[in-house]
């Protein structure tokens, strides 16, 4: 289990080690054909910032060699914003007094129709954590309902037990994304003071449960801005390295959601909540390239949290999948477009506009890269 690996490292020592990397460490890392976790530390360290162009060139080439000149398109489908957790950074947090909604079968199919019209064949199902109303039976039903319409179904919901994942995979689930949010064990509690999510260990062992269930693909990541991103992303890389060796039949992807301001309060009186630390664009490029230079095969995913200009430029630097036209509120596509979103979308362009932008840059937008018929029991 990863937990035993995790406890061999101390946050403060890892952080100190990253911040003490030198230009020579970075240069050595750049010259290697295969890079270690120590090299990764150098590549995410402040010392690497002056090597950004070189990192980008290498990352660009490695990504093209592995993934070709293609970008996978996907869209999120929010099923529910009910949530029993308090997360200090999330608009769906239990203590945020907003109208709650969980989509019915009819509503799910209305949303599906819009996504299909947009051209999507890969969909990501998203919910909060409300185990009574949006538990395994609800998710299973939703997957079965959606399955005939999509080639590839991913899910980003509360962590579940191994047997629950097995049930959902049998229903047609392919990929599960579960972000640790932060690997800083003490401060995790501050960001997640209430609800099942406050259990750090249960969340940390989720990828192990997914691996044991035999999931096709899993997505890792941290919420960037909660703690020192360099240290948190080292732990993500450490986790990935462990998982690749342990659950070698599973594919992996990484996301790097940066904190954005969220809307809090009541519907009458709402305000934007800001955070103390934001990662700069330069640092995010550094991180994308560092992940690529560590792991040639890992999928790197970019959401509509990021701005148009940033997205247009980074798709060549290592990204392999991208969402577009996203709505982060349940019913956002068709049922109730005006409801509160989980986070503010920055890039509002339609999927077709994004596809055109991708083609203009000499890449092929890929809508389908899986077939539901492959999943046989």
């Amino acid at each position, binding site marked *: 289990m990863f937990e035993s690996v995790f406890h061999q490292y101390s946050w403060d020592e890892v952080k100190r080690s990253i911040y003490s990397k030198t230009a020579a460490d970075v240069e050595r890392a750049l010259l290697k054909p295969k890079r270690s976790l120590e090299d990764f530390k150098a590549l995410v360290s402040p010392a690497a910032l002056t090597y950004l162009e070189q990192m980008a060139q290498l990352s660009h080439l490695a990504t*093209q*060699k*592995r*993934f*070709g*000149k*293609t970008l996978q398109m996907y869209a999120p489908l929010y099923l529910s914003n009910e949530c029993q957790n308090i997360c200090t950074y999330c608009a769906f947090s239990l203590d945020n007094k907003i109208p709650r909604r969980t989509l019915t079968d009819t509503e799910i199919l209305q949303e599906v129709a819009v996504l299909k019209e947009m051209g999507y*064949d890969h969909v990501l199902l998203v919910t909060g954590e409300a185990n009574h109303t949006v538990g395994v039976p609800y998710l299973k039903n939703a997957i079965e309902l959606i399955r005939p319409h999509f*080639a590839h179904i991913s899910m980003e919901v509360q962590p579940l037990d191994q047997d629950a994942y097995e049930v959902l995979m049998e229903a047609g689930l392919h990929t599960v994304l579960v972000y640790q949010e932060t690997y800083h064990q003490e401060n995790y509690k501050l960001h997640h003071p209430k609800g099942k999510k406050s259990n750090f260990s249960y969340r940390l062992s989720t990828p192990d449960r997914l691996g044991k269930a035999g999931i096709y*693909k899993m997505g890792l990541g941290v919420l960037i801005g909660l703690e020192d991103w360099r240290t948190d992303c080292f732990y993500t890389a450490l986790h990935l390295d462990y998982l*690749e060796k342990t659950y*070698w*039949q*599973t*594919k992996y992807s990484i996301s790097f959601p940066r904190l954005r301001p969220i809307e809090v309060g009541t519907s009458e009186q709402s305000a934007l909540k800001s955070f103390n630390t934001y990662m700069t664009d330069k640092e995010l490029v550094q991180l994308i390239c560092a992940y690529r230079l560590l792991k040639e*095969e890992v999928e790197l995913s970019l959401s509509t949290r990021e701005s148009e200009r940033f997205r247009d430029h980074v798709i060549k630097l290592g990204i392999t999948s991208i969402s577009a036209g996203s709505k982060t509120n349940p019913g956002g596509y068709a049922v109730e477009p005006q409801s509160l979103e989980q986070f503010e979308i920055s890039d509002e362009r339609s999927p077709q506009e994004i596809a055109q932008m991708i*083609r203009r840059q*000499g*890449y*092929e937008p*890929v809508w*389908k*890269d*899986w*077939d539901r*018929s*492959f*999943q*046989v029991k």
Partner: protein
Amino acid sequence: MFSSPLTIADKTFQSRLFTGTGKFHSSATMQEALLASGSELVTVALKRVDLADDQDDILSHLSHAQFNLLPNTSGVRTAKEAIFAAQLAREALETNWLKLEIHPDPKYLLPDPIETLKAAEELVKLDFIVLPYIHADPVLCKHLEEAGTAAVMPLGAPIGSNKGLRTRDLLEIIIEQSKIPVVVDAGIGAPSHAAEAMELGADAVLVNTAIAVSEDPVKMAQAFKLAVEAGRMAYEAKLAQPRSHAEASSPLTAFLD
């Protein structure tokens, strides 16, 4: 064409360059490059095409008299999944040709010899023309041959690695022993690698990444076409063996004449 044609099962090919269809920056470029390569057998990943859609972008660009389709099972992890996918492909694409790919390891996409042999045995019984993608394992190749596959497709190096014939010593044994065509698949990163495989006596090569990801896929496709042709011609013309020393001026066995 200056070299002899190649027959696999019920088909005869003038071109010994087989090609893949992934990683191109557009379907139009893919079509142009594949036409320029002269390739008559193109492999297409089932997971990438929408079999229910008769306007599918990839398939419509491959609908050309020059191309025979070779559906592949890339993405499956077990024999069972492969057999299921194969049947689906045969029904939808109206061909019983199949590139059998089972790689449960998504990192290096290395083929699973055990599951591949299992699936090959079943698929042959189901009347598929099976071309299995495998390690350069001479014994496995003989097992597959006995199972009735139409060819074997050993790898030169890990797929997409562009490293060339890293398995050369084993490929030589496979080529020497095989009664069915040997197609070197995966790892061929440069026309010189393709020529090398053909000079060794491979019956064909399969190239994808090196063409698709190059700056000019059409030109690179032509380069591979020429290299495969040159390598095959050299093989047929009986390539001179390299010598590390000069001919002796006083032969040791002259006294026997």
